[in-house]
């Protein structure tokens, strides 16, 4: 796999400086390193600025509905558990419209990797407050300041049952690419909250803000400790925005619950109709 092979005829349409460029580059970098392409991988996306990404990476993909990317990816993985499945979602997309799907997919531990493009507002609709917007933040829909507390995607993911929970900053492409590879290797529901600036609408969560305030969890951090992970997950402030793997444990995946796909993916099997007459006889 080369960068050229991942090239589509379309140039990204994001605003110059948008964090999506970095996420796009990190995903492509990971794909080149790991050999992800249309023979072994599928991308799924929701709706928002992030969703356009499928037009700029030449890997077979599905751009679904706002908030509904995760169920599409879950079904896709059930039908073909041989594929690496990456789900690109936005903060409004995944936690406004699609919160229920996120919670339950994490609980069931589908073996998919969810990449949250977290710019803390709705950008494609021109700058309204989102579930991850800070209290007091002025947006187009909250001109006097956001009256609501944000919630913390990482805490939610951990408590809901996700088995790989990490945070990245889009500006550090190299680290993000490593995390994406790690997340894909993990068997189970992997979630990376990728902090990204929206250069057009978000005047507080800028590149400079993130650069000044993020730090990486050290080698002494124990990511199997759930309590510690929850403490770290609610840490967000000046000089204290932790990045890296917060939580990682092994748990049976959603797919492993079905012996039907233990040997080979559904899509490679012929429907087995041998017992049909026997089944019908039960109704005599």
């Amino acid at each position: 796999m080369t960068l050229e092979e991942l090239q589509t005829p379309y140039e990204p349409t994001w605003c110059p400086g948008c964090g999506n460029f970095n996420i796009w580059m990190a995903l492509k970098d990971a794909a080149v390193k790991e050999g992800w392409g249309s023979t072994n991988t599928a991308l799924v996306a929701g709706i928002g600025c992030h969703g356009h990404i499928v037009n700029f990476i030449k890997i077979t993909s599905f751009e679904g509905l706002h908030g509904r990317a995760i169920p599409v990816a879950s079904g896709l993985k059930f039908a073909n558990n041989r594929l690496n499945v990456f789900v690109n979602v936005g903060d409004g997309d995944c936690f406004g419209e699609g919160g229920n799907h996120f919670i339950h997919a994490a609980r069931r531990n589908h073996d998919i990797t969810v990449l949250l493009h977290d710019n803390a507002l709705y950008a494609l609709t021109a700058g309204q407050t989102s579930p991850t917007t800070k209290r007091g933040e002025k947006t187009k829909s909250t001109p006097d300041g956001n009256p609501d507390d944000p919630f913390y995607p990482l805490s939610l993911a951990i408590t809901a049952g996700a088995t790989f929970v990490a945070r990245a900053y889009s500006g550090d492409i190299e680290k993000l690419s490593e995390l994406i590879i790690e997340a894909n290797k993990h068997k189970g529901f992997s979630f990376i909250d990728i902090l990204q600036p929206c250069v057009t609408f978000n005047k507080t969560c800028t590149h400079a803000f993130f650069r000044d305030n993020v730090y990486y969890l050290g080698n002494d951090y124990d990511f199997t400790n759930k309590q510690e992970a929850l403490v770290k997950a609610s840490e967000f402030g000046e000089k204290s925005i932790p990045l890296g793997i917060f939580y990682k444990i092994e748990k049976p995946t959603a797919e492993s619950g079905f012996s039907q796909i233990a040997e080979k993916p559904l899509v490679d099997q012929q429907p087995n109709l041998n017992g049909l007459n026997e089944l019908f006889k039960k109704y005599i």
Partner: protein
Amino acid sequence: MANDSNIVSVKIGGPAGTGVKSVGLMLDKIAARSGYQVCDNVEFPSLIRGGHNVVQVNFSLDEVTAPRLNSDLLIAFDQMTIDLHHNELKKGGGIIFDSDLADVSKVRKDISLYGIPLRKIANKAGEKEIFVNIVALSATLQILGGNLETFKKLIEEEYGDKGEKIVEADKKAADLGFEYAVRNYKNNLHKYMGPASSFSSPVSYMVLNGNEAAALGAISAGMQFAAIYPMSPINNILHVLAANQEKFGYILKQPEDEISAINMAIGASYAGVRSMTATSGGGFSLMTEAYGLAGITETPIVIFDGMRGGPATGLPTWSGQGDLQMALHSHQDEFPRIVLAPGDVAETYELTIEAFNLADKYQTPVVVLLDKNICENDKTLLFPDTAKVKIDRGKFVKKKIDDYLRYKYEDDGVSVRSIPGVGNFFIANSDEHNEEGYSTEEVEDRNKMMEKRMKKLLTCAENDMPNPEVFGPPDADITIVSWSSNKGSILEALKNFSNVNYVHVTWMNPFPVKFLTDVLSKTKHIVDIECNYTGQLANLIREKTGIEIEDRYLKFDGRIIYPEEIIEKLDSIKGVKKI
């Protein structure tokens, strides 16, 4: 009143949770195994705590397609059943009841009283309340002249997995009930129910409801993924699919909501396996958004909607036919959708298989509209020839091909579909897109892609759509138009008239415009019969053919339309001829 001399109708009633439905199903099976054709009607009114459950079993040597307003025999497990239903008994009918508990002083004098100490006898068999049902059913068999051994064999099959002790106790209860009836009601043999041995070649009828037919049809069609969120009245589709998934190798998943159900099914179908979901109207409302997603991404999917009465929660355990226009119109803008509506259990099995083929051939969502009566009422069905089932996956490749274009403009509207993981790049895109699937808002792209997608319906109408079936004389003066479970009652009613026929519509989109225009223009009088408030099929016919049907017999109380009601309606039409 219908001439029902050859039909036996037995109504069984009791409190919810006491096995009324299973008694009905056992009587269905005993009758079917004795060579009779059967149909039942299951009603679960929400009257009081616990609820009052009723099943009516109807059987006959000829096909019987609908329940009756009145019954020959009533099996009452409680006083309420007697109080509510004794007046529905035909002249000379009978009631089987617990002689130690029930008050039958208000029952008409022409009714035979078959008092049996049900609980006392059940206690002798093993002190289990469930045996009351067995005692009552075996006594009923004696009163109907049925075969005890057929019943005991059924007990062995149905309760075999509960252990020999239980089976023996059940069989003892059956013996005791039968003997009691022999001793006390020997000369009161009610109606006839000849034993299987009186038939030279017993036919093997299955007893199946629409939910089971849909599930078995899906399995027969090679369905490999189903995601279903529970909702009455389609729960049994979920249960049958759940129980058989390992044996047949498909996956059944119960997700967090209907939105997830349909999106999961779309994801699985995109990955290359036949996929489905099932719900009722309320769940379908939630699925509306992804209905169009399947349309624009050209992802095959089969959606079952088991219709019940009322908006919102409405009449959860009752029937309705008010979702037709929703299936035809829900979701913004336009996309090709195929909407089918089987009229009975046999059609449900056949159209389910057809739905999967059409979804694949036209790469678009197919809705199968059932109603609660089809979903939950059992009917005898000849054993289907599963070897004849044809699976057609349409233009579909699972290997790498050069210069692949997923949404290539084709004259018939259908491009070659492929899947992720085989090296064919494409984007299944909810944004309007070009032939590869890249997002586009260009005028030419939009126009051509929209025309390509919509063309699929014309191709489907030309290649696959049959004409509606017409029952009764082709040149009748009076023509009934209807759909869904009304079919059964209409066919029973037709037996009483010489100049009435019935046009049974099962394809709602694409729609048999030319055929209906021809048939309906010929007749002198058209009656539309539906279970909804506005006459949604009649409105569709007006929209598509310009023919206005003024005479509409509409019912929206959740109950089945009985043959007697249709006969009464037809009797009121000028020029109708009785046989």
